[in-house]
């Protein structure tokens, strides 16, 4: 069992309950031991930073200070926005010492203190891939999701801006793809995998949000996906709950369900759907789930099958799961050898 300080974030208690429930189910068999930060508070989402900087960072830092008190080092956050806010506060407090000092001055008013750099802020997906490992995950799969065509939707705030260089690629991250493959799903080529769901624009500028949601759903549908899979409560909410509004805005009739990756991992590990929060989505997953076990037709385009057999050769491929984007100069070197 690996121990983690758990920062659930507000969404996990309300609109993303499915994420919370499914995480609670899969944590035990995967060996993730979660200790929730006592009396954590909201991270301020993307709102507080746009109002008043020092209070916004102090709000985030209260959580960091409480987490550091536990004596553990690694904070696990399943929500992308929370993950980014925690990581950002930790990073900027060090990059800009003036910010760090002021935030600590504010924290002192609540008898708290935080030294930037003393915690590792990690997202659940990162922990699953790098701590638990794909091999462990694969070994626990009892019901491979064969036949389910999934569009891997990592979103924005996990692979970007990536202060601590944890992710494979800011534009085309491979982590979620690898997890979904490990649980036996058929991963479709989904070019929108790290594009935006509209964020808070569903509230303040819905027209902007509808367009971004439309791009995502239409792209997923064109890729012949049965279902979209996300790691972020905001992405899930926007694509799921605002799909109806988007449809009426454009006169379309998309029906693209979206679930959290932990829910699918739960299914693969053999948990019943009802324990994993299935059914709480607005866009039904019923049809998609019924595909599990079905054979996938040949025509479906799957990730990584684009290489052509004829014509000019394609450039040598970067190793798909390379952890460092650092160039190993595969092309020139291999040829010279």
């Amino acid at each position: 069992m690996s121990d983690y300080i758990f920062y659930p974030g507000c969404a996990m208690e309300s609109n993303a309950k499915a994420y919370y429930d499914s995480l609670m189910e899969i944590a035990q068999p995967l060996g993730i031991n979660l200790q929730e930060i006592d009396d954590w508070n909201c991270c301020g989402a993307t709102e507080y930073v746009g109002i008043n900087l020092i209070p916004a960072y102090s709000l985030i830092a209260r959580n960091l200070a409480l987490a550091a008190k536990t004596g553990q080092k690694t904070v696990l956050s399943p929500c992308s926005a929370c993950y980014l806010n925690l990581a950002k506060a930790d990073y900027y407090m060090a990059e800009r010492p003036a910010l760090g000092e002021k935030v600590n001055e504010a924290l002192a008013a609540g008898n708290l203190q935080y030294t930037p750099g003393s915690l590792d802020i990690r997202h659940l997906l990162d922990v699953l891939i790098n701590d638990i490992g794909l091999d462990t995950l694969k070994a626990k799969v009892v019901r491979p999701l064969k036949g389910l065509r999934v569009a891997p939707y990592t979103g924005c705030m996990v692979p970007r801006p990536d202060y601590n260089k944890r992710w494979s690629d800011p534009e085309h991250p491979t982590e979620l793809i690898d997890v979904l493959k490990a649980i036996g799903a058929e991963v479709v080529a989904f070019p929108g995998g790290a594009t935006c769901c509209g964020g808070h624009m569903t509230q303040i500028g819905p027209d902007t949000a509808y367009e971004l949601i439309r791009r995502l759903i239409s792209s997923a549908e064109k890729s012949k996906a049965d279902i979209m899979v996300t790691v972020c409560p905001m992405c899930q909410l926007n694509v799921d709950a605002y799909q109806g509004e988007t449809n009426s805005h454009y006169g379309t009739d998309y029906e693209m369900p979206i679930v959290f990756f932990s829910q699918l991992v739960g299914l693969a590990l053999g948990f019943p759907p009802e324990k994993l929060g299935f059914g709480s989505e607005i866009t039904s997953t019923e049809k998609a789930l019924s595909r599990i076990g079905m054979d996938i037709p040949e025509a479906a385009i799957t990730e990584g099958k684009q290489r052509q057999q004829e014509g000019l050769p394609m450039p040598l491929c970067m190793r798909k799961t390379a952890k460092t984007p650092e160039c190993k100069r595969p092309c020139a070197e291999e040829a010279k050898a």
Partner: protein
Amino acid sequence: MSNDKTNKIGVYVCHCGTNISHTVDVAKVRDWAAEGLGSEGVVIARDYKFMCSSPGQELIEQDIKELGLDRVVVAACSPHLHELTFRNASKRAGLNPYLTELASIREQVSWVHTDKEAATEKAKAVVTGAVERVIENEPLEELKVAIHPDTLVVGGGIAGIQAALEIANAGKKVWLVEREASIGGHMAQFDKTFPTLDCAACILTPRMFEAGNHPNIELMTWSEVTNVAGYVGNFSVTIKKKPRYLKEELCTGCRICIEKCPTKVVDQGYEAGIGYRKAIYTSSAQAVPKYPVIDTENCNFFQKGTCKVCEKSCPTEAIDYEQKEEFLTVDVGNIILATGYDLFDARKVSNYGYGRLPNVFTSIEFERMCNAAGPTSGDIVLRDGKTTPKTVGIIHCVGSRDRNYNNYCSNICCMQSLKFAHLVKERTGDTVYDFYIDMRTPMKAYDEFYQRVLEEGTLFVRGKVAQVTDAARKASEEGKLMVQVEDTLIGKQRRIPVDMVILSIGMEPRHDAKETGKLFGIGCSANGWFTEKHAKLDPISTMTEGIFIAGTATGPKDIPTSVAQGSAAAARVLNMIMRGEVTLEPIKASVYQGQCSGCRICNSLCPFNAITFLEDRKVSEINPALCQGCGTCVAACPAGAISGTGFSNDQILAQIDGLLMDVTLADA
């Protein structure tokens, strides 16, 4: 602190017009030297309006002769300005030049301070430091070494070829070492060269041939330098000759073996990954030398033990599967490094889709595609090998001017992109978009070429491309590559549909530049390019005497500049050879072997490999010709067995004493 050596020291304080005297009370400094430092051996102290003027220098010369001075301190400007002037003055008067010290009270005192009292006090301290130091100075003699007339040129690209030919044509012998199977470098891969559009092969091949057949050039391809010993004028270089698996003396270059070889592999080298070669190959039909090599990783015989088609088909029985690598040691007097550059790996910019989107090409792929001898016989086609594009987008600055990759400008990409725009227009009449941040066309006839491309109708968009994607947002985008960019001159985002994208990728230092630098004892800048001795005034020398650099090894350059540098480096080498011998600065370290414990700590510290361990006597020894005088070993020696002339411990400790004399006196 008294001077038990009973020296006779002269101190000269310069006014430098009013440059010094307006902030420093020169008379006070002079008096301090005469009175306060009399016990240290100062026998005369003078001040003068301009010490560096002829009368000023004569003053010193006269005192040396008449008063028998054996040490001189001049308090004036920075030693970088006039140290040599005053040392020469001493030399003329018969005093060893290294017994004269310059104490800077201008750049380091009068020009940077405003409080006259504080500045005068500091000037006194600086002079005291110099006096204490000069007492410890030793007379030094310059070193002279002979120059071996042969030269090593590393790298057979255009810069190296040029350097080799210049030297060889002057009648001197050159060893030209190239690690690839053929010389020619990157230029040999190009189709046309900007801005004149000469065919690269037409102008390069004759030079390659000349270098390959020159009686004074010993061409060693498929070879690498593995060790460099010795010093300026007397290098001893070990060269590894990799096995070609073919006896060069028997091979006629008939290419039958290549024709018969059953294994075809993608050529990631010369053909930049868009063409094929055999497992036994030459880079091209024009390769110099003409001998093929066997790629053992793909050869059936080396992998599976069967085949031997090449051996069977060779009419002269030149194939030799048993060939081993050979080592050769040669003596040379000078070395020119023309090791060139690597290309930026465009896969790193994942938002441009290279490696993922088939119709995104790099500039080097496109060069090969345009080349009539290349994989498409010069046809501009998509990755399917047959479709001619209707619209082409060219993207500048890929991997350059970008802190996420390389933060420098790659110098040639603007012109290269313009050349591509012209070639696409000329051959296909396509619509061409050219996406640039800033158009940089500063050399001769370069901007004129830009004008020409504008005239031809290329559509320029000023903006760094944000992404290239195949994700269509609407029906009209289906099946196209969308180039998404802010047209910064409009201030709006545009999504431009194209069929083909060409990425103008930048230049990078060789991936092994650091190791190469270590091997030859030269440094790399933070970006990884070799460092010149002086970026402007000595761009082809290095901090290691006898090692010169030419071409793109020091940074991105176009062909004319690389060629000019090749010639310049050759001129410098010929200059050295003509002189026959070279004088070395006597600032050197040496080991007092009686005190050396043989711990070898210093051995690994020296960046110039000047220190060797004498196994028989178990002590270390410093080669004075190799030593550059940095003094790191002196500081590191735990036994205190190494001393450095010019900057000895005694000199520096005495100087510190002098600098702090006022504090010590105040304490007492």
